[in-house]
Each structure stands twice: as structure tokens, then as C-alpha cells.
């Protein structure tokens, strides 16, 4: 999501690394590039200006640590500022001493309120709570039905009044609250109609729904693909209701996600959840520190490792590492590990979490198609070929290409890549220490941030 931002900072800092101590002029240059990078990432101009000014101020007053390179100092500053805007730590839902806790979902049309409401209900139910979904979107056709169906899928009760007129949302909210108190529900999640922030009438309705529902939390649901308008949206909603947090949706796309910064900056409220997929389980706590690291080109390594731990068997992984280091890794092993890698999600997503991996000469869709082709090629090899790739002569390769429905070029490429990696890993472990990594035999460069391998 913040991919391109990462690569921009990478570019800047790679360049800075080659220079000596940071001068004021260099700070200016870096800040100009940061401004540009943030704008390209859809951070609202207003927020960019304020953010850059803050970083400049800090840069000027900052003590110079002898232990840090200039680039490291700037990275630290920018990262600190980013975390400062995005929130210090993952923020949970507010609690209330008078149950039920009412959570009001508000936002523009199509931002994902109904889906986010259902995901939140599922999350709370999983924590042993007893949520009630309330259908207060009386405007969009079949919105009530959508919430009812999602309620069925998550086994969460839904308070819906299909016969209500479209201006009765506040009354529905109020009746739902009574119902929830009577029946002992712990949480009330109120889905509202999507509305344009410039639509005075509908914004008034939202205020009325809020007055009737007495929310503990008012979550502004924001599409991660939003552009410059994010700042206007946030300001308008903040004027009408007491926004207490933000839900960032559709983060599983490849939008740079600058809207997250804009929203957090303008509202001063934390981003509490992130929608990361179409399934009802795909709602995660938002991690500001990880996001900031990601912006700075350090990737989202923590999430990546978490995922890896879930899919790779530890003993098996150690064995594979050993084999890789000794160049005993075979296509048979490769095939086995690919199955685990596949479980981590689409290749494009895995790559997105890796540091510095943002500029891709091929599209995500193409990238994700690569995996099945590679699998087909290996599966078309005989056991002997898989265990001893050196026997792969021209006629064998031709046979494999036909068998896998690929081309000889593709087979050649795979074998070459396989060899390269074996050499690369061997070189890395052979030389020992950091210097060895910079002298990879094939001229391959490890992405920055992976130095600790």
C-alpha cells in the first residue's frame, strides 16, 4: 500500500548514504523529495505541508548522534514523525461503564461501512462478547438485506426494520438501543447510510442518529484508495459528529494509502482497524509502527515473519536453510517450500511486505501468475531431474516445456534462477559477516533492511 512511498525514501537515502554529514541544503532536498513522495502517495497537500514543516523543525533542533549516519538520522526523524501522526500504538475500542457499548459506523458511500460493521461484529463475537448489528442505512436499496445476510453468516443478531421510512434512521437507532439494553447485548454496531460530506441534509441525519444512539465509539470508515479529498471528508465528519476513530478499508489493494496519514492528521484520532480482504475475518488491528516502517522502506517485516511462522514448519525450515547454505537444495525441496509460500497469500502481497521491494517491472497480476507456471515446470520434471538439475540437457528441457505447457525459455530461466540463488546463499554464508553480502557472485543485491539475515 505504501510501496511507492517506500521506494522513494529508499532512493533518497541511498543517495544520501554516499554523502558525508547532512547539510541544511541536503535537508531541504530530502524534504522536497519527501513532500513529493507523500503527494504521490495521495497524502493531502495540507497535511504534507504541515508534516514536512514538523520534520524540518525537528531536523534543525536535533542533536547529532555520532553513532548514526546522516541518512539514519533522517530516517529516524521521519519515522518518528510518521508514527506520531499515525498513532503511537495499536488503539483498541473504547470501553463504557454503562453497557451496551454503541459503535456508530459513518462514512461516504462505498467506503465499506456495512462490510466493516459485520467484520467488527464477528471480531467482537470471537472475543466472547454479544454484539447486535443495527441496520440504519434505510436509503440504499437492499442495504438492510445485506446486513441481515452478513448477520446470518457471522451468527450475529441484526436489528432491522425493513418497513421503516427512509427518514426514520434515528428512531430505528433508538429502538435498537432499547432492545439491546433489554436483551443484554454487550455491543451495538450501528450501520448508517453512506453520505456525501457536502450533503447538509444527510449530515444532519447522521447527527440525529448519533444523538439517538449515544455512541461510545464513532468510527469513520475510509477507503484506503481515497485521494486528496480525504482531508475534506475528515474535516466535515468531524464537524458533525464526535469521530473517535478510523477504520481504513481495502488495504489489501496496492493503493499507496496516503489517505491514512491525512485522516489521522486531520482528526487527531487513531486508526483502529484495517480491512485487509473480502472475507469476514479480514479485519485487523492497525499497527502504526509497522505502517511507518513500511513507509520508510523497511517493509512490513514483522507481519511477514508472523505469516511465515504460521505456514513454515520450524524444523523443516531449519533443514531447508541448512540445505540452501550447503547448496544441496533441490527442485524437490523447492516444490515443497513453494506450497508453504503459497499459503502466505499472493506473491505480490508477500513482496509488498518486503523492504525495498516496491518498484516492479511487471504487474502484480503477472507476478501472481508466475507461481503456477513454476510449479508446472517442476512437476513436469522426473524425480532424477528434480534431485540433480545438472542432468537437464536440451532434450530434457524441451520435454519439460511441452509437459508443463510453458516454453523452453521459461524452463531455462527457472533453472538459471535456481542456480543463482543457490550460489547467492552459499556466498552469503561462506564469507560470513556483512561484507560478504555486498559481494554476491551474480551481482545481486539484497534489498536494504534485510541486512540482518
Amino acid at each position, binding site marked *: 500500500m505504501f510501496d511507492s512511498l517506500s521506494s522513494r525514501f529508499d532512493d533518497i537515502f541511498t543517495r544520501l548514504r554516499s554523502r558525508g554529514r547532512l547539510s541544511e541544503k541536503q535537508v531541504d532536498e530530502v524534504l522536497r523529495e519527501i513532500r513529493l513522495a507523500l503527494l*504521490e502517495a495521495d497524502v493531502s497537500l495540507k497535511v504534507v505541508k504541515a508534516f514536512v514543516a514538523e520534520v524540518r523543525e525537528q531536523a534543525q533542533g536535533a542533536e547529532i548522534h555520532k553513532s548514526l549516519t546522516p541518512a539514519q538520522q533522517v530516517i529516524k526523524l521521519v519515522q518518528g514523525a510518521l508514527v506520531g501522526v499515525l498513532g503511537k500504538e495499536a488503539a483498541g475500542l473504547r470501553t463504557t461503564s454503562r453497557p451496551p457499548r454503541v459503535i456508530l459506523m459513518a462514512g*461516504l458511500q462505498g467506503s465499506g461501512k456495512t462490510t466493516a460493521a459485520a467484520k467488527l461484529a464477528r471480531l467482537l463475537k470471537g472475543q466472547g462478547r454479544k454484539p447486535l448489528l443495527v441496520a440504519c442505512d434505510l436509503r440504499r436499496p437492499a442495504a438492510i438485506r445485506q446486513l441481515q445476510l452478513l448477520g446470518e453468516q457471522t451468527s450475529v443478531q441484526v436489528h432491522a426494520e425493513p418497513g421503516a421510512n427512509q427518514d426514520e434512521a434515528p428512531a430505528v437507532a433508538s429502538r435498537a438501543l432499547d432492545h439491546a439494553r433489554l436483551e443484554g447485548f454487550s455491543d451495538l454496531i450501528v450501520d448508517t447510510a453512506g453520505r456525501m460530506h457536502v450533503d447538509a441534509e444527510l449530515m444532519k441525519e447522521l447527527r440525529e442518529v448519533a444523538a439517538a444512539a449515544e455512541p461510545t465509539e464513532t468510527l469513520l470508515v475510509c477507503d484506503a484508495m481515497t485521494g486528496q479529498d480525504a482531508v475534506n471528508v475528515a474535516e466535515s465528519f468531524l464537524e458533525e459528529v464526535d469521530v473517535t476513530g478510523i477504520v481504513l478499508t481495502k488495504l489489501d489493494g496496492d493503493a499507496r494509502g496516503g489517505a491514512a496519514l491525512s485522516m489521522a492528521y486531520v482528526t487527531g484520532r487513531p486508526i483502529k482497524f484495517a480491512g485487509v480482504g473480502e472475507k469476514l475475518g479480514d479485519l485487523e488491528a492497525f499497527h502504526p509502527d509497522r505502517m511507518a516502517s513500511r513507509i520508510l522502506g523497511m517493509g512490513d517485516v514483522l507481519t*511477514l515473519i508472523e505469516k511465515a511462522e504460521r505456514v513454515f514448519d520450524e524444523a523443516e525450515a531449519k533443514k531447508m536453510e541448512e540445505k540452501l547454505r550447503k547448496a544441496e*537444495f533441490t527442485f524437490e525441496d523447492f516444490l515443497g517450500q513453494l506450497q508453504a509460500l503459497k499459503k502466505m497469500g499472493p506473491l505480490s502481497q508477500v513482496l509488498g511486505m518486503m523492504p525495498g521491494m516496491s518498484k516492479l517491472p511487471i504487474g502484480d497480476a503477472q507476478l501472481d501468475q508466475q507461481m503456477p507456471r513454476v510449479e508446472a515446470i517442476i512437476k513436469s520434471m522426473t524425480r532424477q531431474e528434480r534431485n540433480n538439475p545438472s542432468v537437464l540437457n536440451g532434450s530434457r528441457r524441451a520435454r519439460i516445456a511441452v509437459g508443463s505447457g510453458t516454453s523452453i525459455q521459461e524452463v531455462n530461466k527457472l533453472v538459471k534462477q535456481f542456480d543463482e540463488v543457490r550460489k547467492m546463499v552459499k556466498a552469503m554464508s561462506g564469507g560470513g559477516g556483512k561484507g560478504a553480502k555486498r559481494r554476491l557472485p551474480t551481482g545481486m543485491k539484497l534489498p536494504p533492511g534485510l541486512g540482518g539475515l
Partner: protein
Amino acid sequence: MPEGIALLLIVALVVMVIGGGALMARTRGPRAPRPSGTEAEAARRVEAPPATRPDQVRPATRAPAKPAEAPPRPTLRDRLTKSRRLLSGRLAEALGQSATEETWEDVEAALIQADIGVSTATKIVSDLKAGARERRATEPDEVMSLLAQQLVGLFEAGRDRALAFAPEPPTVWLVIGVNGTGKTTTIGKLAGDLTSRGHTVALAAADTFRAAADEQLGTWAERSGARIVKHQPGADPGAVAFDAYKFAVARGIDVLIVDTAGRLHTKAPLMDELAKVRRVIEKEGKVHESLLVIDASAGQNGLVQAREFAHAAGVTGVILTKLDGSAKGGIALSIEDTLGIPIKLIGVGESIGDLEPFDPKTYVDALLT
């Protein structure tokens, strides 16, 4: 598991699958001698001569539209009244004084805030500066009209923005896009417009994924007097499209509009599914329009969306929705400028009549007036 091992394994596997070349290109800095794909692309974009110089621009003369598809209500400007002050106010303010470097920066900022994108905005402003100097234009009005000409010039003159109809019915329009852009609502409006002009319309509920999507479409079918073809939730979207096509042929329906599930362009299996929906229809007939719905509030990712959807299912036109908010939809301009996909319609409200043909001049006027 030690994190080093996990990372090493992943890196090794990934490099084996996609090759080290790709990774090198991704990690190389801007000063590297060999430009990476994206840099080369950016360079091409910069080098490409502007399609039309400002002084050569003439407002697009609209091709004589087929009488059937031109609702005669050019009310975009009225609709945009609420938000008009934004860009125009800032520009007028900036241009009210004698032009300094700051003025141009303000113009650029205003364009960026319309989601036009930094590189396009920079280019527009540098062209504007040159144009103003050349013509010795100093009065705010002159500069404003120069800017308007320049923006209109980004839309290719004479491009056909009318929706295509089949010579022999049924006409088939496929409606696609990411989640939450307003596909179903747009289809409702399209159906209402068509039936009000005497066409028979069928809607295919090929969004079988989202809960109650078919019922939402059903409500629009009722409102507009269109027929609807639907299957069970979770059914194969291709099968729905196929049946709907058969239905349209059998009943002599004029226009079949296929609603599809919103999908992020990064999800390969879902994009494949979309390609299949198109293929299935093309086994029997033809898809006359593949319309990409773009949310006016979308940022720079809109361009990536357009590229990926065009790759998977072809895109013949863009429908820019939610222009009744404060978002300007500048990304649609970039889509047309970069990919050559014309914006055909705009959505300016939630009522059945709130869909209008796109006219570059009206759009730019609305942006600047």
C-alpha cells in the same frame, strides 16, 4: 523460528520464482545507469509531446451522437455548485495578483488537490507559464482561459464518448470496477435512462459475491422497468452472464447490462473471473462496452486500476461517479491522458436521473469557474 531463517527462505523462494533481475530492478536507486521499468515509463510519459498545444486547442466538437444516448441535461455545473469554490476560489485568488513564482505554485497546488497527480500538474503549470509569457498574458482572466484550454486539450478532441449500440440487438454493456465505486447504482441509472427512451432492458446480476447485491439490482430493475436475470448467491458469474445473454436474445431485449462484483485489481483470481465473464458472453455474442466505474474521490491508484482492468477485461470507457461531493475526479483526466480511455459518463447524485454524458469543456469549466 529465528526470523533470519524465515526471511532467507522467503527471499530465496521468491527469487527462484520471479528471478533476481526483477528484484534488482525494484531495489535500484534513481541514479542507476539502467532505468527500471517504471522509470522508463515515467520518462516516456514526460517525453511524449503534448497532444495539442494550448493555442491549437479547439473545444471538442461533439460527434453527432445517436439520438438514443444523449440525455439533454448538461447540469454538471449546477450540480458542482456546492464544491465549486474550492479550486476556482484558490485559482482566482492566486491569479488576482501579478504572477509570481508563488502564484504558479498555488495553481499547481490546486491542480494536485484535484487529484490530477503531481507530474501532470507540474507539466500543466510549466506549459501554462510558457504560454502566458509567449502571449504576454498577465490578466487573471487571460491566464485562466489559457489554463482552461490547456486542460481541455488533455482530452483528445473529437473522441467518441457516446455509448456503443449493436446494429442488431441485443447490445451488451459490461460494468466493472473496484469495490464501492457505485457500479450497481450506475447500472440502475443507465437502465432508467434507456427505458425512459423506449428501449427494453435486461440486467444480469453477475455480482453473486456480495450479500444482497442481486436484491439491490432488483430494486433498480423495478424502478426502471428493466428485467433482471439472477442465480443463487455464490453462483458462477459467467453462468449468470451467459443465461442473461440467452434471455436477452430470446426475448428480443435491446440492451443487456451486466453487473459484476467489485474486485480489487490486485486479486489475480478475481480478475481472471472477470475475463471469463467477458469470454462467456463473447462465445455467443459481443460485448459492446466494457465500462470501468471510477470513484471521483479516488487518488492516484485509479490509474493503476484502469490499467489492470483494461488488461483483464478490456475497458472501452470510464464512468466517473460521485462528482456531487467535493472530490474533483482529476484521476479520470490522467486515465484518459495516459491510457487513452475516454470518460463517457459522470454520476452526480443518487437519483435515477443523475447520470450525464461527459463533456470535457463542461467538466473543465466546472473545475475552474
